[in-house]
């Protein structure tokens, strides 16, 4: 393998695939990135056996084709620290790999490309075309509610559901639940539920650019793959049954409160300063036309704030982990939000007014 490439062209795909590669791994080859030069294309592959990232880039000066694996982190650190705009020459010399640029020269160890593991080949059962922005929204609006290292392993990921005309994402950690959906222009004739593991979701969020370009998604029984112009990303799925989220969405709430989202958000942010650092509890006291928010900490300091809301009904006192409320208010983007409540032991449903794409359920805290 022998090619010349400018720093920026190499750095972008290299950074992309590095996300999949663990720094230290029991299998040494998994710390390496696979470089594959065919005709005028360089593709880079990184994997941790759970997820796999492939990024490709066109190269004008290919002197010799070839396939080799080299330590990913070192390659990335070297390329990143070379001067901007420089040309980099990559050459395989026997069992070594030489990076040179100007008067700098680095020699890395290699491992054979043949030994590089790739995810088993599989067929997509359902294929979808989505815009990048739409997919990113579906993930962003829910990912923050995923569990992390929960013994209920199926919660350490995100439910991705395709149902004829709808794509829906759901995430829950047992305390709160986030759900987002997208109406498809062209219905798919299929119904499928799968759980994307946490790491896969976070990587997808990192990779997806913020534009309306189109990408395709393939859903298999054990894998999901996302194919974009510059990269493809695959992830294994969590083998488990996601709980039935429909059961926990309150349908018969007796109290409807409409609040100005920025006002509620700012009041919660301020109150959170004096909430217990560990439990983050705040108290909502609801009365006609007003909502009082209070927080106390173990030092007996107190925050108290009253905001105007649209509400006619009985008084209610209910406690929440303020971080959960703030996560929701930060994720919604409408001016007004509606809170559907019943009593101090029942969940609240929060939605944006005039935008039914995302819904959030938060369980209260007993204070």
């Amino acid at each position, binding site marked *: 393998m022998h090619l010349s490439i400018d720093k920026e062209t190499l750095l972008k795909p290299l950074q992309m695939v590095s996300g999949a590669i663990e720094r230290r791994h029991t299998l040494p080859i998994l710390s390496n990135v696979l470089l594959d030069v065919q005709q005028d294309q360089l593709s880079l592959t990184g994997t941790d056996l759970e997820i796999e990232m492939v990024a490709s880039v066109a190269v004008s000066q290919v002197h010799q084709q070839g396939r080799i694996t080299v330590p990913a982190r070192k390659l990335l650190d070297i390329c990143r620290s070379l001067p901007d705009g420089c040309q980099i020459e990559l050459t395989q010399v026997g069992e070594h790999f030489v990076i040179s640029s100007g008067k700098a020269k680095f020699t890395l160890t290699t491992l054979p490309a043949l030994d590089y593991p790739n995810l088993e080949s599989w067929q997509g059962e359902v294929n979808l075309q989505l815009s990048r922005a739409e997919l990113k929204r579906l993930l962003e609006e829910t990912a923050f509610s995923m569990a992390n290292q*929960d013994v209920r392993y199926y919660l350490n990921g995100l439910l991705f559901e395709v149902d004829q005309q709808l794509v829906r994402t759901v995430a*829950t950690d047992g305390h709160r639940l986030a759900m987002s959906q997208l109406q498809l222009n062209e219905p798919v004739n299929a119904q499928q539920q799968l759980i994307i593991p946490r790491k896969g979701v976070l990587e997808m969020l990192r990779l997806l650019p913020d534009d309306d370009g189109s990408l395709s998604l393939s859903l298999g029984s054990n894998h999901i793959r996302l194919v974009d112009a510059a990269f493809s990303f695959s992830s294994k799925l969590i083998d*488990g049954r996601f709980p039935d989220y429909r059961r926990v969405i309150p349908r018969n709430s007796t109290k409807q409160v409409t609040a100005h989202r920025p006002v509620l958000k700012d009041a919660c942010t301020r109150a959170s300063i004096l909430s217990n650092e560990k439990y983050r509890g705040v108290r909502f006291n609801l009365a006609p036309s007003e909502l009082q928010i209070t927080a106390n900490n173990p030092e007996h300091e107190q925050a108290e704030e009253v905001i105007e809301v649209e509400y006619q009904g009985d008084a209610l006192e209910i406690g929440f982990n303020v971080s959960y409320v703030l996560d929701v208010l930060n994720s919604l983007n409408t001016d007004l939000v509606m809170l559907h409540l019943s009593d101090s032991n029942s969940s609240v449903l929060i939605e944006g007014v005039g935008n039914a794409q995302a819904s959030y359920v938060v369980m209260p805290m*007993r204070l």
Partner: protein
Amino acid sequence: MTQRKIIHIDLDCFFAAVEMRDNPKLGDQPIAVGGSVSSRGVIAACNYPARTFGVRSAMPTAQALKLCPHLLLVPGRMQAYKEASQQVMAILKRYSDIVEPLSLDEAYLDVTGSALCQGSATRIAEAIRHTIKTETGLTASAGVAPNKFLAKIASDERKPDGLFVICPHQVPDFVARLPVQKIPGIGPKTASRLQELGVHYCQDVFKVPLARLIRQFGAYSQTLLERCQGLDQRPVSAERVRKSVGVEQTYAQDKCSLQDCEAELPALLSTLQQRLERHRASSLVHKVAVKLKFHDFQQTTVEQQVQTADLASIRSLLVTAWQRGEGRPVRLIGLQAGLAEQDHKQLMLEL
């Protein structure tokens, strides 16, 4: 996280030991602290000579006297025990700022990073035992381990007046051979459910498929798996959170009908509520339990999740408990209120 060093101190047959200390004439006779036969009392504590006769705490005094006719029965002096306990806790505080009392006669200490005794937790534990003996005349057993639950198990290994250390490198072997019911919190019920899954020792847990474990034990499976690996992240916390408040009454005459038992509930509930108020815990109640002890000393407990402790829920629990007795007369009725974690109880979605 740095390797922690936790000591569990457990005073040996505490009430009985205080009595022996305060009354040297008792010598090595078998003695027990407890209620009299005429008041249908039970043994609260007994010394080791009494234990050789098979006398155990919570045993009816009448039965204890059958096993050991020359057993010397002394009535309890709660004030003296409290004073002795305070004295011991004060000693513990000299060795660490982080002392968590579990009851009058038990406490955890976190001595991580301590400069005392060249930082040796084992020697700190020995020093504590020595100081308790010289200053209070009582003996204590100690367990030293990298976490709370292992320290507690360790203190039981060399009782009485002994010390047992579980070093970090010994933890895997120690835990592998540890019977699951030794884990604090695993009672006979959980132990038998585990046995049905083929789990007798901690190492057996890992042979059970995770999904099966979760189905059986829900969120507790996490704790279970951690303990079985010898892990326990719980910090030693100086402010102890009360987990329950209870009241119970042994009756001079057995209650022979459900109606007779029901008639006692209002009085018991009122005492329970007073105690809840005293601990400012009324709003934290999330569980109530009714305990019945039958005339044959078999006992049963029925519990239920509730928002407040009220007569209606307690009565329905009593009915269930009574039915379990299949007509046996009742000698004791107990009520217990389980408390949610102080002030902050995050409710869960019903997934």
